[in-house]
């Protein structure tokens, strides 16, 4: 995080739209916290100025106070004392200015980091599921960590140091010019030389840093593969071969790392010693000039010049260092802005889900304490009862507008019916359910829910009316009870327990060390696959929606647990419209409607008996004559 020895020149990919990003970033910082920023910038300038003025004062100290005293053999130090007081004044103004900006900038950086993170997360929650499917997990993750961190680093450290170094150089050069133009030219010559050295070294080191990143990526991939398959490695006594391959990658990483760091760390002693050379040259040339009386140079001026030249080489190497940090941070900022600019899910739905109770005339009346749910259409006075009838009418879908993923899907699921979707991976089963909950938007056709086009239903309401049990159970770091409560935040402990019983999960939960209060960590890695599924069924049960989407897990859980899960699922499916992506016999047997999907089309439809009689794809699958992959 706050590494003082930031590897210099460690380049990721640079920003692509540098100008626009800088503008937007500066705009963001400036509009967010204009006052502290201005105060900090002025403080930086004052601090730099004070430093240079302090050094310049040395000339007057020597030439105007000390030397005359020496010549006069006077012991009246009151003038000297006054001079020191003035110098002290300048110095301490500088100290206060330094204190100000070094306190302001980190907090500013932190504030912006928090704001950007919060904005990013809040915005991310509005993005469509497609964004998460398209983007790599690690890639999005690194925007929250690396990218925000480097950005904060930029604001709290690089930016003030950069500005400070810049002003330092300017003031030092001005100061030098007032002392001796000739010596200044000498210094600038050395300055040019250092720039050359810096460029050479940083080109070299960034070349090897890139190589190092590649080697690191390679060895990372290899280690991951090896660790994932470590049991296989052991079973086949393949350790020697793995070690040999590892050594190869390891050696190439060592070489790149040694060269990258070699060139980059060399910069500091080289710059430092170039500073020394400048120091010596100043004394040498300056001395000769003073002695030969060829210029107006005084002893005090040399003393001050020497002091200034000490302050000269440091900011130069700092600027080059910060420049790299800035480039990296800008690339990060660009990626952050990219996420912030992603388009949110479109939601033009008007129809909402409300609680209601049946009035005297049998009509539903809106009532927040009501026991049933109903659809409320602002264009319509009467509430529409929530029943769970779903109709797909000529639905087409394509991710990119070219390749049709779903073709002319037609289906009617009456309230309470069970629909089983059967087909190979990639046939489009999950895609059909993704249309219903509007994770993706259909291309053409319509889907209606209780007769309402789902496009007109507010997404939050639509999704609340749909339960989902997904293949992979995502658990959150929290208690078991709260993980179930995700289904309905207002559920009390009794309701949670009731849902767990319905899902057949109560038994194993009671056996956990703290029962319902057991903390789940690491995504529930201490629970078995089956247990996680039971929790996810309980979660859906507590939500109690009229329509369920079940994506059954395929991974092999044993028959006993599978039966437990099955009982839970069956309980959940009772009296609900269910779309089941089926892998299990029992789900298929008693389905009201079985759809065999192939290449995004419904190839066969019917119930178990009619499809078996048909002796088509379903029959082949069912008898084990074909296996889907």
């Amino acid at each position, binding site marked *: 995080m706050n590494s003082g020895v930031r590897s210099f020149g460690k380049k990721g990919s640079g920003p692509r739209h540098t100008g626009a990003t800088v503008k937007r970033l500066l705009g963001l910082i400036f509009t967010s916290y204009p006052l502290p920023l201005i105060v900090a910038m002025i403080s930086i300038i004052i601090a730099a100025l004070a430093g240079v003025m302090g050094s310049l004062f040395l000339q007057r100290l020597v030439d105007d106070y000390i030397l005359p005293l020496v010549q006069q053999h006077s012991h009246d130090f009151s003038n000297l004392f006054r001079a020191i007081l003035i110098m002290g004044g300048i110095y301490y103004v500088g100290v206060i200015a330094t204190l100000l900006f070094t306190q302001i900038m980190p907090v500013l950086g932190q504030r912006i980091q928090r704001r950007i993170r919060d904005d990013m997360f809040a915005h991310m929650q509005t993005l469509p599921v497609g964004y998460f499917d398209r983007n790599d997990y690690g890639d999005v993750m690194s925007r929250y960590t690396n990218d925000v961190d480097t950005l904060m680093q930029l604001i709290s450290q690089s930016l003030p140091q950069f500005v400070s170094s810049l002003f330092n150089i300017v003031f030092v050069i001005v100061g030098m010019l007032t002392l001796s133009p000739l010596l200044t030219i000498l210094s600038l010559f050395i300055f040019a030389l250092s720039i050359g050295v810096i460029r050479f070294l940083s080109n070299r080191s960034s070349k090897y840093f890139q190589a190092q990143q590649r080697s690191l990526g390679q060895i990372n991939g290899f*280690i991951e593969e090896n660790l994932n398959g470590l049991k296989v490695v052991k*079973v086949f006594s393949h350790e020697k071969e793995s070690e040999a391959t590892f050594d190869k990658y390891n050696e190439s990483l060592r070489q790149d790392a040694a060269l990258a760091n070699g060139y980059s760390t*060399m910069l500091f002693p080289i710059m430092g010693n170039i500073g020394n050379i400048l120091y010596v040259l100043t004394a*040498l040339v300056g*001395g000769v000039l003073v002695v030969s009386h060829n210029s107006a140079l005084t*002893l005090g001026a040399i003393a001050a010049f020497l002091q200034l030249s000490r302050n000269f080489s440091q900011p130069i190497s700092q600027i080059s260092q910060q420049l790299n940090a800035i480039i990296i941070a800008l690339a990060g900022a660009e990626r952050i802005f990219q996420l912030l600019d992603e388009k949110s899910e479109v939601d033009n739905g008007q129809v909402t889900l409300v609680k209601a109770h049946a009035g005297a005339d049998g009509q539903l009346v809106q009532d927040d304490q009501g026991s049933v749910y109903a659809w409320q259409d602002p264009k319509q006075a009467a509430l529409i009862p929530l029943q769970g009838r779903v109709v797909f009418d000529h639905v087409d879908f394509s991710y990119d507008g070219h390749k049709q993923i779903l073709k002319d899907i037609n289906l009617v699921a009456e309230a309470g019916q069970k629909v089983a979707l059967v087909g190979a991976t990639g046939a489009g089963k999950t895609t059909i359910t993704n249309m219903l909950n509007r994770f993706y938007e259909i291309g053409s056709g319509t889907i209606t829910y209780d007769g309402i086009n789902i496009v007109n239903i507010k997404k939050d309401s639509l999704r609340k009316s749909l339960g989902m049990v997904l293949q992979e159970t995502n658990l959150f770091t929290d208690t078991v009870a709260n993980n179930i409560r995700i289904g309905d935040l207002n559920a009390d402990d009794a309701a949670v327990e009731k849902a767990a019983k319905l899902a057949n999960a109560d038994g194993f939960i009671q056996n956990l060390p703290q029962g319902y209060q057991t903390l789940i960590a690491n995504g529930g890695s201490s629970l078995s696959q089956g247990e996680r599924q039971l929790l996810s069924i309980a979660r859906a049960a507590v939500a109690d929606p009229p329509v369920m989407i079940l994506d059954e897990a395929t991974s092999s859980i*044993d028959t*006993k647990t599978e039966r437990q899960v099955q009982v839970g699922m069956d309980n959940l499916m009772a009296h609900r419209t269910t779309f089941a992506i089926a892998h299990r016999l029992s789900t298929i047997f008693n389905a009201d409607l079985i759809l065999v999907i192939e290449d995004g089309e419904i190839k066969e439809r019917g119930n178990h008996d009619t499809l078996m009689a048909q002796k088509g794809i379903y029959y082949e699958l069912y008898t084990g004559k074909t296996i889907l992959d």
Partner: protein
Amino acid sequence: MLKTLLTAVREYRRQSLLTPLLVALEVGIETFIPFLMAAIIDQGITPGRVDVIWRLGLILLAMSVVSLASGAASSWFSSHAAAGFSKNLRHDIFYNIQKFSFENIDHFSNSSLVTRMTTDITNVQNAYQMAIRIAVRAPLMLIFSIIMAFNINAQMATIFVVVVPILGVALYIIVHFAYPLFQKVFKRYDRLNQVVSENLRGIRVVKTFVRENEEIHKFNTASTDIFSTYSKAQRLLALNAPLMTFMINTTILAISWIGGQMIVGNSMQTGQLVSMFAYAMSVLFSLMMLSNIITQLSLSQASGNRIVAVLNETATITNPAQPVTEVPNGAVDFEDVSFYYAKKRKQPTLSDINLHIQNGALIGIIGSTGSGKSTLVQLLPRLYEANEGTVKVGGIPVQNYDLRTLRDNVAMVLQNNMLFSGTIKDNLRWGNPDATDAQMIAAAKLAQADDFINELPQGYDTYVEQDGSNVSGGQKQRLTIARALLKQPKVLIMDDSTSAVDTATEQKIREAFSHDLPDMTKILISQRISSISGADEIVVMDQGKINDIGTHDELLARNAIYQDLNKSQIHASQDPDVNPAGPTLQKVGDSHE
């Protein structure tokens, strides 16, 4: 911790020692420069002697060049030493992991091992480079500068005796309070990452249950926590700069005031005053550098500890002193065997196992998850070690065998079969690096893999992607079986490894085994009764114990668990064609469409 880490220096000792020596030379020269500079001013410029200026100036230039060279060289060597050191560390960790038993493997999660071998090692590498270079440079600079200052004017140098302790204490206080805050920040970051990670992975859950607002609230709390702790830590650390400026300026003022009087009193010269300024800056800067070094090194301590934890993990299963290198036959015996997974559970995973399998037999094992099926067979190739009792292969306890011999002869097809990036041939050669094409084809034929391999674009030279994503679940399973067969083992264990293979093909595999490999002991674990019903004997496992042993018919007649399983699997189906375990409709482990 340090001792363990330092064993990785090895062949980079020379560079590691050369670095501090060069640093010492550089610092020595650097601190001598202001001293000679004073001489130039006082003996050259003030008396007006150009020859002295030239002589001393050229000496100084030469010294600066030497200092530059040794400084650059020390950086170069330190980088190479540190990179080499970290290479050796990575090597040691990796080799140690390869020695791990399954029990060791279960101790660490894969992602944490990867972090240790990358991020943590990089941290330690940087710390090492710092330790041999800057951590030598800063204290030397401090000491040399103080010595030189005393050399020039002892009376004035006493200023340092006052200033150095004050600054030292102040810097120490800052680090002392900032360090724990930074530790806290790291923890808060973990929480933030956790929230983001869970949301990225579970976005469908979040959206389904319309939990966006709760999650945003959770995130805001986490990010505010970071903000408050981190800003406190940074503000504290940011006091360093003004503190330093204050101390330097105050020192310079003091030197100017006292120096001015001394020069007038003739006990000091102008040049010496200028050099005192230089020493004052060196002294104070090296103190600041020192406090930075301490912070950095202590931050990398955590990384060091994590690395040492892996290095110190000793493999729980090792080769015996005088190993047996030949397995006489494929007979298997379990005698009063019990097994506990370390610390995890109080009750044993396996208890009182007695089982005798004859050479060449076909044995089926069935039972629910957690009944101990997989654990039982993993004791055979010593992937885990029995806590009590004896496990024998070919009549000899498994502990007496050379590990490689044992594992070559007891081949195991694991539940989580895994292929590695490389061609199909590369993957098959895992079984036998010297396998000829004919041998590979023969093994593939036995595993019923030859047909589909030939249909692949490049046949046996088709490249398998990193996670085997371009072959289907059933194909993957058949390849892993062929890979195991190439070992020509005496015992073959298949742990639920035909679950994604259709019943007809599965039948063919079993037939090929009985026909072509009659002397190989075959142990099949399965969820499907149809897969094992033809076995010579079937072992029914329940809660870590053997519940019953018998043939399919015997068990159907007398064993309740077996009957139960059988019933659930031929559920509602009288059709003789029907696959009793139900269709396997999808590739195992596939997540989304």
